[in-house]
């Protein structure tokens, strides 16, 4: 195993102005600054205009840029995602929103068979510089068809970059990077990290964000908390739960290192391996389904590089292979809650 030559980008210190935004507002600011800078950028999707996106992904953009740049579409995912592909092929930079990732079933062909494969099938002669934004995640009783994460499904398929911001800073930086990338990038934002007034939120959903435009590199994880007793690898809302548990357990003398993957494709395996080499213990928290997904990919990364890095077996806290239930006690039994994380950490450090 090689050591990382450059350290993973850690969470930055707040800017001098300390100006704070919610994740939603940071995402919007990233989009707005790129739309200002590059006239070929436009945003389309359902209810992204006057409504501002049902999870506030486009608030204010219609007023600022007008209906030529921010377009409400009919309920026709195949048509408008495909439209984005065609526009991208001709040199525009569309951002197309799939309202809920759970809706991918109605349009997945355009995404995985076209958007993701055109560059390869054309031997690199045709580029598809588009972004697909989509809301993921549960915890507010929206049921089996509106609460999924599904990043494992998307990351499994070749040809699409996948980014999953957990913080306002990363939300803006990854959006900027995604728009500027000449490849298709799927930008998956958890509803619970957006800082929406009408949904329970973690205090980390509001944080300092630089006013100027900046990129967070795609494909680089961040060590958001350094520690020595165990490595917690996770993404999205689970980063906040992991940090909450880490702060709590620090008082008990358990020192956790938390790795926020931020990108799933490309996946920063080096940062994971470096951390596991340091701690010898690995817990993966994944709000996607347990089997055949992200958590298995992280475990395999360690196992096929050097299983000797581990002093005890990998632990995974994920959603079991069941449809996400509606009733609150059931839903919270399957989500990777702080209780489940705490229990797993205790078992891990004792093992």
């Amino acid at each position, binding site marked *: 195993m090689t050591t990382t030559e450059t350290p993973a980008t850690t969470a930055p210190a707040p800017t001098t102005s300390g100006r704070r935004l919610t994740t939603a507002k940071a995402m919007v600011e990233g989009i707005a600054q790129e739309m200002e800078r590059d006239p070929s950028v436009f945003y389309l999707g359902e209810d992204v205009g006057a409504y501002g996106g049902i999870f506030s992904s486009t608030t204010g953009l219609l007023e600022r840029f007008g209906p030529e740049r921010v377009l409400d579409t009919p309920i026709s995912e195949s048509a408008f995602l495909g439209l984005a592909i065609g526009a991208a*092929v001709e040199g525009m930079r569309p951002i197309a929103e799939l309202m809920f990732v759970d809706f991918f079933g109605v349009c997945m062909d*355009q995404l995985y068979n076209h958007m993701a494969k055109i*560059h*390869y099938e054309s031997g690199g002669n045709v580029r598809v510089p588009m972004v697909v934004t989509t809301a993921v995640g549960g915890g507010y009783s929206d049921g089996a068809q509106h609460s999924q994460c599904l990043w494992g499904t998307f990351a499994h398929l070749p040809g699409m970059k996948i980014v999953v911001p957990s913080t306002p800073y990363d939300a803006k930086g990854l959006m900027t990077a995604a728009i500027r990338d000449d490849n298709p990038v799927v930008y998956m934002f958890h509803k619970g990290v957006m800082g929406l007034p009408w949904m329970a939120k973690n205090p980390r959903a509001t944080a300092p964000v630089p006013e100027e435009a900046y990129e967070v590199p795609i494909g680089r994880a961040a060590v958001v908390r350094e520690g020595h007793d165990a490595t917690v690898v996770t993404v999205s809302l689970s980063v906040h739960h992991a940090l909450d548990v880490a702060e709590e357990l620090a008082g008990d003398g358990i020192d956790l290192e938390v790795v926020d993957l931020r990108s799933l494709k490309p996946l920063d395996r080096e940062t994971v391996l470096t951390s596991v080499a340091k701690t010898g213990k690995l817990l993966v928290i994944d709000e996607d389904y347990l089997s055949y997904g992200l958590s298995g990919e992280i475990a395999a990364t360690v196992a096929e590089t050097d299983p000797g890095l581990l002093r005890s077996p990998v632990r995974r806290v994920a959603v079991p292979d069941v449809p996400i239930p509606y009733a609150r006690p059931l839903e919270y039994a399957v989500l990777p809650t702080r209780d489940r994380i705490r229990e797993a950490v205790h078992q891990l450090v004792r093992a």
Partner: protein
Amino acid sequence: MDDSLRLNLYRTMVLIRVFEEAILREYHADKRPAFDIGAGAVPGEMHLSAGQEPVAAGVCTHLTAEDAVTATHRPHHLAIAHGVSLEKMAAEIFGRETGLGRGRGGHMHLFDPDTHFSCSGIIAEGYPPALGQAFAFRRRGTDRIAVAVTGEGAANQGAFHESLNLAALWRLPVVFVVEDNDWGISVPRSASTCVTSNAIRAAGYDMPGERVEDNSVEAVYEAAGRAVARARAGEGPSLLEVHTLRMWGHFEGDAQAYRNDLEGVPGRDPIATYEHALRSAGVLDDGQVKTINEEAVARVEAAIDFAKNSPEPAPETATEYVFA
């Protein structure tokens, strides 16, 4: 219609047919004595367009290289009529490094940025990207258009209907073409489609619809001319259905046991029909027929030779070109 245009249409159709016959020959040459789909210099599925030349010639003659065309798993006739390089297309069909996709796409996945041509193996899914190309052209203030081609079977797929609605709603400069060759693989149109003509459906999507019944290249040319003019003038999309002819199987290796119209097929060959019409009109004589055919053969065989003499892609490069 002046004579030079008619000769052009004929010439285009002959070039397509000669190309398809050459691919047919090459495809089967090394799959004997028993058909093995994965064997030979051109392995995989092969969907040839003999009989559908009038659609390609009639529509694409109205286009420039700056207009976009999206096609299906049966794309060669449209690619040729739209001006895609025969050499690069042949090389891609043969899976060579010099092919349009460096051998990574194959015959159903031809992409040519020079002519804004693309095709897809997922039927009906070529319609949505055409909308986007049209959107980009119009957004830039040009009168460039996108032509989206699919089959009558695909006109029952969701993406078809979504695309018609959205193109009409946003007045996109698209010409939707439906090639009704009677058969969705083995299922006749009467068993798949609730209407007798997709031109009827056009009205349901607030756009003009025409159906050309007799696979006549001149009728296609005239109808396509109307649709193209509308699109260029900013009047929005149109739908053109052509009742055309699939002379051979859905794919090579298709025994077509389900097909009850095979006896009539040779008599419906559109090139023979048009050649006869042009001869009768004094536009074409034996000498011209011979010359046109020889020129087509020369061009096609040169392209096939180019393909066969091109290197195969190196296995160690298999994971390259996923991302830019």
